[in-house]
């Protein structure tokens, strides 16, 4: 009985470990009145970040040398995260818009 249970637990653990790499998450960030919300998010390599721009003007999510995503007015744009690290990003058109993306392996 005990033996059977532990075997089940081991199988369960293996499944849990396999899930994160197989199923990437989509993390949504809203831009409203020149503010990224949430301003700080945590993601894993392979996840998709989706910015939804509710403003009438275009914005970007730009981390110099890392990524540069243009988000047209009233549209969404996505980025698939490929590298771990902490990325402070801004809007190229409005440098007062600031946010942070933390990516784990």
């Amino acid at each position, binding site marked *: 009985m005990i033996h059977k249970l532990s075997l089940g637990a081991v199988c369960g653990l293996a499944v849990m470990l396999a899930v994160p790499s197989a199923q990437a998450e989509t993390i949504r960030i809203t831009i409203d009145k020149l503010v990224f919300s949430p301003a700080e998010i945590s993601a894993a390599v392979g996840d998709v970040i989706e910015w939804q721009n509710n403003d009438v003007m*275009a914005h970007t999510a730009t981390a110099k040398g890392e990524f540069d995503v243009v988000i047209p007015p009233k549209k969404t744009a996505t980025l698939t995260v490929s590298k771990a690290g902490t990325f402070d990003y801004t809007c190229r058109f409005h440098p007062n818009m600031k946010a942070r993306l933390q990516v784990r392996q």
Partner: protein
Amino acid sequence: MFARLTSAFAFACLISGTTLAADTKVTDPQIAHIAYTAGVIDIEAAKQALKISKDKEVISFANDMLRDHEAVNTQALDLVKKLKVTPEDNDTSRALMKAATEEREKLSKLSGADFDKAYVANEVAYHKQVNGALESLLIPSAKNAELKDLLETGLKLFQGHQQHAEHVAAMMK
């Protein structure tokens, strides 16, 4: 009313201190007119830059200004229509326009790097001036909540443009 505005060109660098003093009383129809005028002035400045400048960064910046201010002014027109407010010309709008016309005439005599530097320097100064007016006069005076909201977004936008212009200015040095 706005057709008349678009025929006046250029952008402001100097707004007389008395015009924008904190004790000046402005009504919502006047505030709407001032905010719209401030946008039109920067659109005309951008159009002038696009005609004269050959610099990639300056052209790109001018296009950003044109796009943003046209978008916000369209939103402003939709709002005044919805609120049934008729924007009303006033001393502040006139002072802004007068300063802008003079500045544009000054800039029209320049070319090359001289123009680029003067245009960007004035964009920094102009946005700074409008931010001051929004913070000290227009936002506190606005009665209608939706108008106040649009002005607050406008302030964030103008602050963003000021920083953007400062970046471009720093790159030119």
